[in-house]
C-alpha cells in the first residue's frame, strides 16, 4: 500500500507540475491597457466638466503647462472592465467608502491616526451636509496591520462582502500595489493612496488608481534646487532602508546630479531600528557636506534631529543645510520630541497647512478640521499631520463623488472621471496653488512649500514661495 501511495504522489507531482506550467503566456502582466484611445461611445455624460478641448490624447509626453484645465479631458474606458455594466451603473442611495489601514500589529499601529482623520471627515460631512445623494456617507475601515497580504484580503471583503462603491486612502506602497491590478480589472476606484511612489501616475495601465501624497520627485526637486541655489556643491543622504527611503534616495540622487550637487556620503538606518543614529551622524560630521537630505520614518525623524543637535554643539564647523522629508513635517517630531535645539533651522516641506500652528489659527478650513477632530476623534492629536492626510483622502473622494452627482453620472466610472479631471483645492492645503489632473497629468498634488522650523517660536516658518509644478510629472510609464 505504501508503494501505491508513493506512485500516486509522483503521479500527482508530475500532473501538478505540468498543470502549473502548461501555459506560456502567464508571466506578462495582462491587466487592461485600454485607455490609450478612449472611444467616444463609452464616454459618459461629461458636459459639465470644465474645458473639454478635443486635443488628441494618448501621447505620453508630459504636459508642461501650468494652467489648470488646459489639458485634455480624461475619459475612462469601461469596456475592459470585468463587468462594464457595474462600472457605469448609477449608485443607488448613499455612497459607501472602504479603506484598509493599520489599526493593530507592532510598528504598523503608528499610522493609525490617519484612520481617525478619515472617520472625522465622514462624520463631520454627514452632520453638516446630511450626507450625499440623500443618504449619509458610510465609511468602512479595515485593519491590515500594514501587511500587504492582509490588505488584499480586506479589499476583497470590502468589494465582495461589503460592496463598497469606492476605496480611498489605503496606506502604504506595497499595500496599494498589491490590490492595484485587481481593483483596476474590477473597475473599482482606488483613490488617494497614502503614498508618494511614482506608480500612481501609470494612467495607461491603471486608470482607476490615484495617489494622495506629493510624489517624491517633486519634493526632491525642491530640495536639490534650494541646496544648489544656496551655493552648495556637496550634499549627503540619510535614509531609512525600505521601499519608501529607497525610492526617495533614487529620486534625490537624480535631481542632485541635475543640479550639480555631489553626493559625498550616504548613510542608512534600518526601518526597525529604534536607537539613535549616532554612528551615522559621526560619519556625516566627518564628511561635512553643504546640505543633508534626511529620509527617516516616524520617531526616527526626531532621533535624527536630536543627534543633529548634539553633533552641531560638539562640532562648531558642522553646519549643513538640513532637509527632512514631508513625512516628518509634523510639529510633534520637531517640537515635543526634540528638546536640545536640534530641530532649529531644519527645513522640511509640506503641501498642507499645519492645523495647530498660530499662522492658521484664523483659517476657516483649519477651524473646521480642529472642531471636527475634537468632536469625532478626541483621542487623536490633531497636530499629527497623518490625521490631516486621512481627512484629505476622504474630502477629495467625497468631492469627486459630488462632482459626479452634479454631472448626472453618479457611477463608479463617473466618480473616476471626476477624479481624473479634478480641479479642486481643499481648504487644508496651502493657499495659492493649482491642483488638477487630466488625461496628460496623472498626479494630483504637485505643489509644496519649503518651510523651516523656528525653535523659539515653536512653529514652521515659510522659507519660500509655494512651488507649483502642476502637470510637470505628466504620466508614468514603468
Amino acid at each position: 500500500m505504501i508503494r501505491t501511495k508513493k506512485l500516486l504522489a509522483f503521479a500527482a507531482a508530475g500532473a501538478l507540475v505540468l498543470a502549473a506550467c502548461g501555459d506560456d503566456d502567464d508571466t506578462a502582466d495582462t491587466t487592461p491597457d485600454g485607455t490609450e484611445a478612449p472611444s467616444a461611445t463609452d464616454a459618459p455624460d461629461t458636459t459639465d466638466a470644465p474645458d473639454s478641448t478635443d486635443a488628441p490624447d494618448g501621447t505620453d509626453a508630459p504636459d508642461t503647462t501650468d494652467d489648470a484645465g488646459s489639458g485634455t479631458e480624461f475619459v475612462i474606458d469601461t469596456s475592459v472592465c470585468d463587468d462594464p455594466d457595474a462600472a457605469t451603473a448609477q449608485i443607488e442611495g448613499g455612497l459607501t467608502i472602504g479603506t484598509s489601514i493599520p489599526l493593530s500589529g507592532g510598528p504598523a499601529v503608528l499610522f493609525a491616526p490617519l484612520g481617525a482623520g478619515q472617520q472625522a471627515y465622514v462624520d463631520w460631512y454627514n452632520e453638516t451636509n446630511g450626507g450625499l445623494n440623500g443618504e449619509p456617507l458610510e465609511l468602512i475601515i479595515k485593519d491590515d496591520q500594514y501587511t500587504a497580504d492582509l490588505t488584499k484580503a480586506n479589499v476583497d471583503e470590502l468589494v465582495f462582502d461589503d460592496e463598497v462603491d469606492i476605496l480611498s486612502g489605503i496606506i502604504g506602497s506595497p499595500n496599494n500595489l498589491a490590490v492595484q491590478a485587481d481593483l483596476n480589472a474590477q473597475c473599482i476606484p482606488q483613490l488617494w493612496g497614502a503614498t508618494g511612489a511614482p506608480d500612481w501616475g501609470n494612467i495607461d495601465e491603471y486608470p482607476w488608481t490615484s495617489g494622495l501624497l506629493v510624489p517624491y520627485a517633486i519634493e526632491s526637486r525642491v530640495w536639490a534646487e534650494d541646496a544648489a541655489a544656496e551655493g552648495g556643491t556637496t550634499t549627503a543622504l540619510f535614509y531609512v532602508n525600505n521601499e519608501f527611503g529607497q525610492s526617495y534616495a533614487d529620486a534625490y540622487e537624480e535631481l542632485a546630479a541635475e543640479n550639480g550637487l555631489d553626493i559625498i556620503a550616504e548613510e542608512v538606518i534600518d526601518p526597525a531600528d529604534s536607537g539613535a543614529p549616532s554612528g551615522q551622524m559621526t560619519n556625516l560630521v566627518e564628511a561635512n557636506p553643504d546640505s543633508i537630505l534626511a529620509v527617516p520614518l516616524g520617531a526616527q525623524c526626531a532621533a535624527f534631529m536630536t543627534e543633529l543637535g548634539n553633533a552641531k554643539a560638539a562640532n562648531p564647523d558642522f553646519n549643513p543645510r538640513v532637509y527632512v522629508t514631508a513625512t516628518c513635517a509634523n510639529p510633534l517630531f520637531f517640537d515635543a520630541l526634540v528638546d536640545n535645539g536640534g530641530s532649529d533651522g531644519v527645513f522640511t516641506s509640506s503641501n498642507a497647512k499645519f492645523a495647530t500652528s498660530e499662522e492658521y489659527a484664523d483659517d476657516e478650513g483649519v477651524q473646521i478640521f480642529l472642531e471636527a477632530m475634537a468632536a469625532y476623534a478626541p483621542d487623536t492629536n490633531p497636530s499629527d499631520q497623518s490625521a490631516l492626510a486621512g481627512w484629505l483622502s476622504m474630502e477629495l473622494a467625497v468631492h469627486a463623488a459630488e462632482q459626479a452627482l452634479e454631472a448626472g453620472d453618479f457611477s463608479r466610472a463617473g466618480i473616476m472621471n471626476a477624479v481624473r479631471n479634478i480641479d479642486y483645492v481643499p481648504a487644508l492645503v496651502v493657499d495659492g496653488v493649482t491642483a488638477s489632473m487630466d488625461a496628460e497629468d496623472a498626479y494630483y498634488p504637485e505643489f509644496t512649500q519649503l518651510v523651516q522650523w523656528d525653535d523659539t517660536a515653536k512653529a514652521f516658518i515659510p522659507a519660500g514661495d509655494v512651488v507649483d509644478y502642476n502637470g510637470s510629472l505628466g504620466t508614468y510609464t514603468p
Partner: protein
Amino acid sequence: MSLFLERMVNGLADGSIYALVALALVVVFRSTGQLNFAQGEIGTTGAFVVSTLTLSGWPVWVSIVVAMVVGLLIAASVERVVIRPIEHRNPGAVIVALIGVFLGVNQLNAMIWGVDARRLPSVFPDGADDFVTVFGTPLRVARLGVIGVLVVLLVLLFLLFTRTKIGLAMRAVANNQESSNLVGIRVGGVLVLGWGLAGAIGVLAAVMLAPSAGLSTTLMLSPFLLGSVAAVLGGLDSPVGAVVGGLIIGVTEAFIVGYVDFLGADMLLPVMLVILLAVLLLRPSGLFGSERVERV
C-alpha cells in the same frame, strides 16, 4: 584616534542597552529555561509609566524606580498567571503563550498611551552641550551614563546572587529545582522573583534607550532581537556572557557603520550571523555558557 574613541563609546552605549535586555533574558532563562518573548514589551510599558509620571511632575529617577516595580509586578504575574498553569510547562504551549503576551502587551500599550511618539526625559544631563571632551573627543554624558548604569547593575546583581539568601536560593533553583525543593526552598516563589527581577531590568533597558530615540510602542522590538542574540552569543545562563555579548554587538554595529564602506547599518544581522556561527560552532553554549544540554 578621536573618531575611533567616539565610535567605541557610542558602540558601548548602544551595546549596554542590548546587554541589559540580554541580562533580563538570562535571568529568566536561568530560572525557568524559557526565552521570554514579551521581555521587551514589558520594558516599553515601564517606559510609558515613566513618561506618565514625569509629565505629572515626578522626578525622573523616582519615576524610574516606580516603573521598575511595575515591570517587576507585570513580569512576575506573567509567570504566575500565564506560564505556570500550562500543564508541565509544555515548551510549545509556553512559546505560544509568550507570543500572546508579547502581542497583548504591545497592543495594550498602544491602546492606553496612544500611538504618537513621545519624548522621555533622561536621568542624566542630556542637552546639546552636555558632553565631556576626552583626548579631543566629545563624549556625551548621557551615553557614558548608560554604560555606568550597566556597570552598577552588574555589581548589584553580583552582590544579590553571592551575598544574599534570596540570591543563593535563585542560584540553587537555577541549578536544580527538585533538590532545591527538597532543602526547603519555595521554588515557586523563587521563579516568580526571577521573572520579576528580569521585568525590572527590562524596564531599565527601555528607559535608558528611550531618551535618545523617542518613545513609541515599537521602542523595544529591535533591541529585543539584538538582546536575545547577545544572550545566545554570551551563553544563555551566564550574566557575564550577556554583558559581553551585548557590548560585542554594540561595538560591531558602530564599527560596521564607521569603518566598512560597503556595509551599512542595515547589514548588521548578516554580519552577526557570521560572528554567531563562528562562536557557537566552537562553543555551542556561547562564550561563557556552561556546557549543559538544554532540551526544548
